[in-house]
C-alpha cells in the first residue's frame, strides 16, 4: 500500500516513521498542483489538505484521507498526532474492501417515455432531434394529457393550442419516434442501459377512420368528461387524427357500426409487446385530488360544485353561464385529513379561472375564498389585475357548502373583518390539490416518502452522479406549471442524452455489498434503506448498485455484519479506531457532509481545540455502530462525539434519525455497564458551526 504525504512545499516536516512491511511512504511537495498517478485498483492513504479538497483532486481512488493541513498544521498540533492519524488510516485501509468498479453497459439507445402530455412530448422530440430513438406511450387514445383538456394556459391566458399544437407538430415530424396509445407499462426489468419493458395496449376500437364524425352523432351514450359533454366514441383535436372508443362507457350497442365509413371493431383487445430501452422518463403528469373526499364541500352531491378543470371546460364550451361564482382554495391540500402538502399550482389555477370568467362574462360576480394567496412571482400581477376587475378576495377557509332554495351557499369567516360570512352562488369552483402518479413509481421500484418519490425530492441527491436510468419530467413528481414543466422536460431530455450517448458508465461510487455466507436473510436491512436499494432475489438479499447511495446505514442495522460498505466496513473502521485512540482522548466521528466541514472551518477561523481530540470522517452519523463507540471507550477514550446533520438535513434522507434512535439504546447500555452515559454525545453540527464543534469537544474534555 502507498501512503502519499504532501509536505505543502516542505512546510510539513514529518519525523521518520515505519508503517510496517509493504507500506511505502512517499513524500510529495505539492499534491494539489502535481497530481500523483494513482490507479483506481490500488488502496492508498493520502495525507495532505482536507479531504474536501483532496477528494476533488483524486475522485476515483480507493483512499483514506488524512487531514494534515487543517487538523494538524493550522491547529498547531504535534507531528506525533499526524503520525498516529496516518497509522490509523493505514490500519483501516488494510482491512478495507476496495471499491469495485461498477460498469453499466449502455446497450440500448432507445428511451422509453411514459406519458404523452406536454412533458413527454417535449422529451421525445428533443431526443429525436438529437438522433436518439424515443418510444412514447400514452394511456389515453390521444396526445396532450392535462393541457389538452384546458382552455387556456396561465398566467398569460393563451389558448392551450398555442403551446401544444406546435409541439405535437414537431413530434410527429420527428425521426425515430414510436408512439403507442392506450398503452401502459405492465412490467419493467433490467437496469440502466438495458431495461426490458412489457407494454400493454388496449385496442382503439376505430380501426380505419375518415374523420366524418357520424359515429358520435349516433352514439346514444353521453358522458360528462370533466365538465364537457361527449359521447362514448369521441375525438380530441390533438393527435392522432382518428376517433376512439371509450371502453369504460361504451355499451357495445353497435349504432356506430351502422354509419361508419371506415372500420370499427367493438372489442377491447389487449395486446402485449416487449421493448428495450436504455433510459426511462416518467412523464405521467398530475392527478386531480378527488374532491368527493372533502365531504363538507358537497362535490358529487350538489351539481353546481365543480373542479377548476370542469369549470373551465363548462364555461368555455358555453354550457355554464354563472352569475355568481365562488372559487374555493386549498381543497384537499394543506389538510392533514387529505393531502398534508401545498399543491403549489392551485392558487394559480384559481386566479386563472377568475380571469377566464371575468374575460368572458364580465358581469359575473366572482369571489375567491382562500386562507392564503400564494401568487408567487409574476402571478402577483394577475392577482392585482383581478382585484382591479372587482373580484372579491375573502381570507378564510370555508367550513361548508350548503344548498338552500336552489342556491349554493358558501360559509366562511372573513378574517379581514373577523365576521362570519355566507355567499350565495350558482357555481362553486374547488381548486383541488394534486397527487403524483404513485402507481408508476411503484412499478419502477422507486420508493415513496409519503406521497413523493424519495429519489427526486431531495436536492442534495440531484447532484449525485448516480448511474440511474430513470428520470422524471414535469408534474410526475410534483405539480408544476406549464412553463416549468417544459423546462423540466428539457432538463430530463438533456440527462437522457448525456447518459445514452455513452457506451458504458463506470463508477467508483461506494455501495453496500452483502456477504452471502454471513447473511441470515433476517431482512432487517430492507426497511432501513431509504432508497429501496435492498430486496430479496431468489431468497437472497440483493443490493441494487444503481440505487444504493452509499450511506452505510444498512451495515449497522445488520446483526451479523453481513452488509458492508465499500470504503467503510465495520471491521476496518474498528481497526482504525483502535489504532488511533489513546487513553484520555476525545474521539470525534463526524459526518462528511456537515460536522466534518465545521472542523475545517475551525482551522480557518483560528479556533483551537486540544490535541487529544481525534477526528475521523464518516459517511453519515447513521453509519456509526455502537460497537465502534465501545472500541474507543475500551481504549480509554474520555468521550466519543458523533456529529451529524441537523434533523431533516441528512444527505441520506434519514440517516441522522437512525443515529438518534441508536444513541438512546447506546446510552442505556453504557449506563448498565457502569459508564457515565454522557461520555457519548450525538450532536447536530452544521458545516459552518466551527464554534459549536469546538465548544462541544472542550466541554467533553473537561
Amino acid at each position, binding site marked *: 500500500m502507498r501512503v502519499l504525504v504532501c509536505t505543502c512545499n516542505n512546510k510539513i516536516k514529518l519525523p521518520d516513521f515505519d508503517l510496517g512491511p509493504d507500506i511505502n511512504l512517499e513524500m510529495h511537495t505539492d499534491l494539489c498542483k502535481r497530481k500523483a498517478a494513482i490507479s483506481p485498483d490500488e488502496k492508498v492513504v493520502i495525507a495532505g489538505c482536507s479531504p474536501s479538497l483532496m477528494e476533488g483532486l483524486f475522485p476515483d481512488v480507493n483512499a483514506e484521507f488524512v487531514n494534515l493541513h487543517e487538523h494538524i498544521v493550522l491547529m498547531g498540533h504535534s507531528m506525533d498526532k499526524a503520525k498516529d492519524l496516518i497509522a490509523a488510516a493505514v490500519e483501516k485501509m488494510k482491512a478495507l474492501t476496495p471499491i469495485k468498479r461498477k460498469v453499466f453497459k449502455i446497450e440500448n439507445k432507445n428511451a422509453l417515455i411514459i406519458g404523452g402530455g406536454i412533458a413527454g412530448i417535449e422529451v421525445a422530440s428533443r431526443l429525436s432531434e438529437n438522433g436518439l430513438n424515443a418510444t412514447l406511450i400514452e394511456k389515453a387514445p390521444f396526445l396532450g394529457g392535462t393541457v389538452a383538456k384546458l382552455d387556456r394556459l396561465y398566467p398569460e391566458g393563451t389558448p392551450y393550442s398555442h403551446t401544444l399544437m406546435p409541439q405535437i407538430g414537431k413530434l410527429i415530424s420527428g425521426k425515430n419516434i414510436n408512439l403507442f396509445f392506450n398503452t401502459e407499462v405492465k412490467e419493467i426489468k433490467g437496469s440502466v442501459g438495458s431495461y426490458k419493458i412489457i407494454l400493454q395496449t388496449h385496442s382503439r376500437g376505430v380501426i380505419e377512420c375518415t374523420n366524418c364524425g357520424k359515429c358520435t352523432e349516433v352514439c346514444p351514450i353521453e358522458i360528462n368528461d370533466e365538465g364537457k359533454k361527449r359521447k362514448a366514441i369521441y375525438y380530441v383535436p390533438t393527435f392522432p387524427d382518428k376517433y376512439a372508443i371509450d371502453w369504460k362507457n361504451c355499451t357495445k350497442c353497435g349504432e356506430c357500426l351502422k354509419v361508419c365509413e371506415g372500420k370499427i371493431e367493438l372489442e377491447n383487445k389487449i395486446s402485449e409487446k416487449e421493448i428495450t430501452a436504455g433510459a426511462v422518463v416518467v412523464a405521467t403528469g398530475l392527478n386531480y385530488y378527488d374532491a368527493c373526499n372533502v365531504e363538507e364541500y358537497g362535490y358529487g352531491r350538489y351539481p353546481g360544485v365543480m373542479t377548476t378543470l370542469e369549470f373551465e371546460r363548462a364555461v368555455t364550451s358555453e354550457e355554464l353561464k354563472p352569475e355568481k361564482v365562488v372559487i374555493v382554495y386549498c381543497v384537499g391540500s*394543506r389538510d392533514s*385529513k387529505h393531502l398534508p402538502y401545498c399543491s403549489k399550482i392551485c392558487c394559480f389555477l384559481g386566479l386563472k379561472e377568475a380571469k377566464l370568467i371575468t374575460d368572458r362574462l364580465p358581469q359575473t360576480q366572482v369571489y375567491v375564498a382562500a386562507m392564503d394567496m400564494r401568487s408567487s412571482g409574476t402571478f402577483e400581477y394577475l392577482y392585482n389585475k383581478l382585484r382591479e376587475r372587482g373580484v372579491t378576495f375573502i381570507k378564510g*377557509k370555508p367550513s361548508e357548502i350548503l344548498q338552500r332554495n336552489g342556491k349554493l351557499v358558501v360559509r*366562511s369567516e372573513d378574517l379581514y373583518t373577523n365576521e*362570519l360570512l355566507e355567499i350565495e352562488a350558482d357555481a362553486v369552483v374547488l381548486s383541488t390539490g394534486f397527487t403524483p402518479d404513485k402507481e408508476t413509481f411503484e412499478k419502477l421500484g422507486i420508493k415513496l416518502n409519503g406521497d413523493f418519490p424519495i429519489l427526486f425530492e431531495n436536492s442534495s441527491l440531484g447532484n449525485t452522479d448516480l448511474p440511474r436510468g430513470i428520470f422524471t419530467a414535469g408534474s410526475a413528481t410534483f405539480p408544476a406549471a406549464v412553463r416549468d414543466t417544459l423546462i423540466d422536460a428539457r432538463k430530463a431530455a438533456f440527462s437522457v442524452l448525456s447518459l445514452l450517448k455513452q457506451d458504458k458508465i463506470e463508477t467508483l461510487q461506494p455501495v453496500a455489498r452483502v456477504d452471502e455466507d454471513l447473511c441470515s436473510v433476517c431482512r432487517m436491512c430492507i426497511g432501513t434503506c431509504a432508497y429501496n436499494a435492498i430486496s430479496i432475489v431468489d431468497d437472497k438479499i440483493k443490493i441494487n448498485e444503481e440505487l444504493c447511495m452509499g450511506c452505510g446505514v444498512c451495515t449497522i442495522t445488520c446483526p451479523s455484519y453481513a452488509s458492508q460498505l465499500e470504503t467503510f466496513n465495520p471491521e476496518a473502521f474498528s481497526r482504525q479506531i483502535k489504532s488511533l485512540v489513546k487513553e484520555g482522548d476525545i474521539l470525534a466521528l463526524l459526518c462528511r457532509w456537515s460536522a466534518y466541514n465545521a472542523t475545517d472551518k475551525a482551522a480557518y477561523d483560528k479556533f483551537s481545540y486540544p490535541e487529544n481530540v481525534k477526528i475521523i470522517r464518516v459517511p453519515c452519523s447513521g453509519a456509526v455502530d455502537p460497537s465502534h463507540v465501545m472500541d474507543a471507550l475500551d481504549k480509554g477514550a474520555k468521550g466519543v462525539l458523533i456529529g451529524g446533520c441537523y434533523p431533516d438535513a441528512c444527505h441520506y434522507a434519514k440517516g441522522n434519525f437512525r443515529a438518534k434512535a441508536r444513541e438512546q439504546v447506546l446510552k442505556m447500555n453504557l449506563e448498565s455497564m457502569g459508564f457515565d452515559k454522557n461520555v457519548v454525545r450525538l450532536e447536530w453540527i452544521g458545516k459552518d458551526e466551527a464554534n459549536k464543534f469546538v465548544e462541544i469537544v472542550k466541554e467533553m474534555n473537561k
Partner: protein
Amino acid sequence: MINLKNADPTFKWEIAKQEGGKQILKCFGCSDCAASCPVRYFDERYNPRKIIRLTLLGMKDQVLSSPFLWFCAHCHACTEHCPQGIPVAELINAIKNYAVENGYCPEGYKIQVELLQKMGRLYEVEDFDLKKRQKIGLPPVDKTIPEVAKILEKTGILNKVGK
C-alpha cells in the same frame, strides 16, 4: 389593541403542556373552526380561532379572563373541520382547565359546583316536580344525591374553583 408588551411568551407552551393542548402550535389560522362553530352563529363574540390566536400571541390575561372562553358547547364541529388535525374543542377545554387552575374561574361555574355539592344536581327538585312525576306514573327521585359531594371532594375541584 393587542399590546405585545403584556404578552407572556411562555403561555402557549403552558397550554401545550395541558391535556389536549399539545397541538395548539399547529394552528395556521385558517378559521375553519370559527366558521364551523354553531355557537358563533348565535353570538359572534365567541370565536375559537381568536382564542387560539391570542393564546399563541401570549395574551394570557386577556384569554383567561375573557367571559367568551366559556361559551364553547363542546360539540366538536371545529375538531371535525380543522385541517391541521387539531382537536380544537379539547384545546379550548385545556385553556379552560388552565384558567381554573390559575384562579380565573367564572362565578357561574363556582355556583354550579356549589349546587352540585349541596344537592348533587344542578336543578333543584321541588315537590311540584315530584307531584308531576307521580301523575304520569314515574317513581319519585331523591331531592339530594349526597354521593356527588364525595366525588367532588375526591376530584379536588372544590379547591380548584376556590370553594
